[in-house]
């Protein structure tokens, strides 16, 4: 994985010093809270219901055991002994005190970490495929390109006061594990007919109030020019994105209002101006970064067979372990959705355990997924059983990846000032009906439930096979029910099924939907989403409201 050189470290150190100075000016009242707000947001510091919330950047979701252990240290020293992994592959702490913030930033910078550009109207943390570098189906590791984007977008002088936040995701496989079509820019690495590497560029996807699937603005931009091309997209957005209404300020609205043809014409015209300026990094820089993401030193004698005689282990392997490109190796996903847990939360002790296991069994590398789980990407099959036992002892071996209890959920009204309704208890109550019966969950099969506590959609309800949206209905919490969304390569937006329901009603509705699906599916392999797509909403609506 990528390690800082003296230049990276010097920039991070300067940024930390800058923010300390900005905090000092705020504490001395030399700047107003209104002026301070964008400065603290650019450093990941939000004011939440109860305290400051800090979002720490984990570039493209990849971190080392040492960095992971620092996240545990932060939770222990500055927070309430836990952290919350987010849908942007970052980690959030909910109980930060401003007066301790300088020390916290110093601690992070010791392990090449920071909180820059995890909020604010700037280019946010770049996200990517959690199986990058290990998946059998990828063209190349997408993370070197994510790192090139990270550097290009860090303290970008022209694009630090954008109309709104800007999110970029990069993948290198036809299987989309990073929801690129729901990003401001989604990049898919591919080869053209001549065999050259480049990106298919999607623009203008997003969720929130106005969910839109991204459109292709260019089918192929050579890898050597994708930074200047991104600059072109950002410049068109910075100049013409709406600034009169915060809810219409994302690039998706600009793309929609201009139409993709006119938007594309403007981007191409802008890029024609920018490309000759030499903004793209040279091949030597690509090579330097790609080398840092080279394969770990695989054990070429590692056995490819696996003893599955322990049924609990076999269940976990069947559900949470994926094929690796290297014979003798596997990709293991650590579920952060245990029984009665808060999705995405991990205690300091658990974070330490995972750091240790990554060092011992997984070439010292951990990934955060946008589904709020963790991945150990390079595990010898011979070590899987020992790994599973250690995870199980720490309540980290729930075998529920992509099943009904693997729910994405935003913090909701338990933490967030924006929320209209609680979301964590809804997810917990849905999961409670299934969590003691893994066989039943596996029979139901892949089912992605996503819960947001307000229309801003941090819980990705638009992309849920079943999406749930908390709303305020005359002072009461109510929940809308949506079906048919997907954030994967078959991206689609969930549609509202019928009238909103109360807390008990929404939990019961999910039960009814699943019961109907199990009678209606054409074969056990047909996913809930596919049954819905085949039959349409009417029978599902009848099942819930009939």
């Amino acid at each position, binding site marked *: 994985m990528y390690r800082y*050189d003296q*230049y*990276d470290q*010097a*920039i991070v150190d*300067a940024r930390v*010093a*800058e923010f300390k*100075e*900005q905090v000092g*000016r705020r504490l001395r009242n030399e*700047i107003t809270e209104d*002026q301070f707000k*964008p*400065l603290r947001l650019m450093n990941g510091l939000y004011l939440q219901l109860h305290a400051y919330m800090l979002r720490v950047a984990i570039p493209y979701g990849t971190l080392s055991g040492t960095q992971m252990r620092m996240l545990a240290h932060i939770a222990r020293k500055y927070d309430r002994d836990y952290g919350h992994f987010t849908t942007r592959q970052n980690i959030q702490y909910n109980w930060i005190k401003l007066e301790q913030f300088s020390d916290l930033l110093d601690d992070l910078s010791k392990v090449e970490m920071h909180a820059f550009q995890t909020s604010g*109207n700037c280019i946010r943390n770049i996200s990517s495929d959690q199986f990058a570098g290990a998946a059998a189906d990828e063209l190349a590791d997408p993370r070197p390109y994510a790192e090139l984007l990270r*550097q*290009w977008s*860090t*303290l*970008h*002088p*022209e*694009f*630090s*006061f*954008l*109309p709104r936040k800007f999110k970029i995701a990069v993948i290198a496989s036809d299987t989309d594990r990073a929801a690129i079509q729901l990003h401001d820019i989604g990049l898919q690495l591919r080869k053209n007919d001549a065999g050259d590497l480049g990106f298919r560029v999607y623009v203008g996807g997003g969720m929130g109030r106005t969910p839109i699937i991204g459109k292709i603005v260019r089918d192929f931009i050579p890898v050597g020019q994708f930074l200047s091309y991104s600059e072109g997209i950002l*410049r068109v957005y*910075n*100049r013409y994105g709406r*600034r009169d209404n915060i809810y219409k300020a994302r690039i998706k609205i600009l793309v929609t209002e201009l139409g993709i043809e006119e938007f594309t014409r403007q981007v191409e015209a802008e890029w024609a*101006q*920018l490309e000759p*300026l*030499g*903004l793209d*990094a*040279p091949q*030597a*820089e690509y090579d*330097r970064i790609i080398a840092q993401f080279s394969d770990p030193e695989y054990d070429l004698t590692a056995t490819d067979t696996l003893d599955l005689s322990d049924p609990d282990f076999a269940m976990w392997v069947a559900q949470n372990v994926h094929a690796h490109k290297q014979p003798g190796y596997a990709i293991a996903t650590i579920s952060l959705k245990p029984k009665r847990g808060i999705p995405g939360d991990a205690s300091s002790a658990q974070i330490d355990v995972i750091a240790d296991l990554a060092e011992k069994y997984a070439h010292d590398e951990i990934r955060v997924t946008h589904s709020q789980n963790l991945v150990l990407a390079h595990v010898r099959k011979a070590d899987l059983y020992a790994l599973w036992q250690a995870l199980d002892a720490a309540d980290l071996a729930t075998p529920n990846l992509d099943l009904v209890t693997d729910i994405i959920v935003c913090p909701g009204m338990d933490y967030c000032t924006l929320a209209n309704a609680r979301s964590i208890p809804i997810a917990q109550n849905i999961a409670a009906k299934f969590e003691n019966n893994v066989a039943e969950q596996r029979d139901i099969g892949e089912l992605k439930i996503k819960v947001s506590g307000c229309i801003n959609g941090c819980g990705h309800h638009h992309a849920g096979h079943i999406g749930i949206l908390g709303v305020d209905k005359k002072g009461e919490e109510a929940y809308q029910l949506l079906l048919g969304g997907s954030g994967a390569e078959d991206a689609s937006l969930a549609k509202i099924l019928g009238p909103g329901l109360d807390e008990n009603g929404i939990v019961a509705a999910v039960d009814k939907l699943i019961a109907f699906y199990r009678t209606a599916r054409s074969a056990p392999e047909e996913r809930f989403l596919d049954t819905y797509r085949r039959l349409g909403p009417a029978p599902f609506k009848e099942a819930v409201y009939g």
Partner: protein
Amino acid sequence: MDNQDQSAVAGAPSPALDDTPALLRFRDDAPFESPIAPLADFLGGGNFAAVRVDPGENARDLIPHLGRLKLIEVAFPKFRDGRGYSSANILREAGFTGEIRAVGDVLVDQIGFMRRVGFDSFAPDAPLDPGVVQATLDRYPYVYMKSADGKTPVWALRHG
């Protein structure tokens, strides 16, 4: 790309306070004193050497006229509105070597970014402390990406 004030960037720019107290300049030539025309008036054919570009206006409209312009003001009615950064960068990319002045809600924490995209004078609504400005401009030893100030990005330093 415009490199005309490389020396001011690479050397130690001392933000000399001009006789207009609020004006902060990073140029050696004398400040231009004459009426500053709104963009529409300028494009309408008036004989002006200074023009003002507001956030919704297209800086590219000035490109045919850069040779007769000494000063282009770029307005920042609200510091959060970042369109002016693109305006300045576009003007420098087109080869403009005259003064580009950021006017309005210009805060010290923006000056570093503004210098990078080609602004070389500042008329903030609220006066800035020159010491804090200097500390801000001296803070970053390296930059990751090219911009109008001609600073060498780290990828070029790495591969000299």
